């Protein structure tokens, strides 16, 4: 593989993870709201989108703010990825592979945990459910180094 190809692939991977994390962090609560409306309340996709639109800024719901709150750890992680992967030496396949494994495991872990929390909170509504939205960003921040260490360890096994 040429230097240009390696650099191009690394750049593409970094940008995909960077923007993917930001947009999913923002959109997971909105997608979860629509998903639960469609799957649990048997609404059409158009009705679910209308329902989301009505509740984005409604007092007591504020789904727009919930999205912003959820996005905070994802944005921090995305910035970390931008520098960690973006400045990695593209030709050092072993180092790049290990870092990519760490980043991917962390991203998947964060997206999975966030999506699961939002879907469960909406699927089984509870008076204290909204507390999950407050605690989730902190839990995601705590998950980040743990998931990265796991991914990096896995990467070390794969890229020897």
């Amino acid at each position, binding site marked *: 593989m040429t230097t240009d190809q390696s*650099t191009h692939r*690394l*750049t593409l991977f*970094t*940008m995909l993870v*960077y*923007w993917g994390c*930001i947009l999913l962090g*923002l959109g997971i609560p909105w997608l979860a709201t629509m998903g639960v409306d469609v799957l649990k309340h048997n609404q059409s996709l158009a009705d679910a989108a209308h*329902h989301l639109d*009505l*509740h*984005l*800024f*409604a*007092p*007591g719901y504020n789904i*727009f*703010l919930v999205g*912003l709150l959820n996005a905070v750890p994802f*944005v921090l992680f*995305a*910035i970390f990825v*931008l*520098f960690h*992967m*973006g*400045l990695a030496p593209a030709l050092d396949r072993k180092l790049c592979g290990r870092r990519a494994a760490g980043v991917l495991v962390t991203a998947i872990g964060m997206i999975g945990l966030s999506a699961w929390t939002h879907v469960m909170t909406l699927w089984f509504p509870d008076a204290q459910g909204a507390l999950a939205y407050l605690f989730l960003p902190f839990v995601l921040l705590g998950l980040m180094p743990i998931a990265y260490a796991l991914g990096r360890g896995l990467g070390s096994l794969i890229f020897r």
Partner: protein
Amino acid sequence: MTKRQIWLNLGGLGVLMALLGLVYWQHTGIRAVPGLIEDLQSQDRQAQMLAAEGLKHIGLPAQAAVPALLELATSAGRSSLHSEAAGALPTIDLSAARRVMVHYLPKLQDPDSQIRRDAASVLGALGPVARPAVQGLIGILNDSDTVVRERTVRALGAIVLPTDRVMGGLLQALRDPEWTVRYAAVMQFSFSGFSSPESLAALRDLTKDSNQPVARLAQSAVTAAERPTSIPVQLLMLDQPVDRTYPLLQLAKLGPRAAEAVPKLTSLLMSELPLERYLTASTLESIGPAAKEAVPALQQALHDADPVVREAVAAALESITRTASTTP
């Protein structure tokens, strides 16, 4: 990646954050009012309910929505919409809220029980502003329809003022033959800070009620009554830049025992919000002669721009001076 690419991506993130901030700004505060008025005038019930709730939170700057809210609160149709629209009015326009009250007050005597139920719910949704409706509500505490009686009790609990009459009505409801009505009455004592020696005695009796939910709730009401409302806590809440309705009503329920709150209440007579000025004057009225030091500020408030506030101020002055002159 080159450093330039990294900075470009960071810049993109900055632009996205600025856009999100702009979207949020456009959809909150006074800027949201035109959109919410459109929602009120739509045929989408959920949009109407959420718009009314949104306008209630915006408060005074949502003046432009008053005609649409009045229309929704008084038009024929669903009662839940009436209550939601009526509930938004007190924070925006006290006089408009009073117009809704005047519209519903005669309906308490309607032969159709559904109309009486709706009227009681709407009057309750108006909260303390519907104070002149208390006598009418007490008058239907013996209604033949259980749901009317239950909604009347909840309405009295929401209106709160004047505390002595509301307390009398709630005491009457504690002896209602229907358990749902007794339950609604006990709830007012469990969570809202209403308390008196008579209510405590009645609640103690109800701890032996044959209906278990009523007996359990009465037990919690007795426990709540034994924990007196802390005036310093209410004063602390009044210092917060949030909705002051709750602490003001808690102080009103304390009556003369809230005398130490008078200096703070006097300063609140100058509040920007008519609802706060109205509640402050009503609280001073409940305190009575012990609020004597508020008289100069109340006399100034007699020139308040809002007629409903002026009426409450006049009632407060009468309560303070009349009772003071009869006290030896």
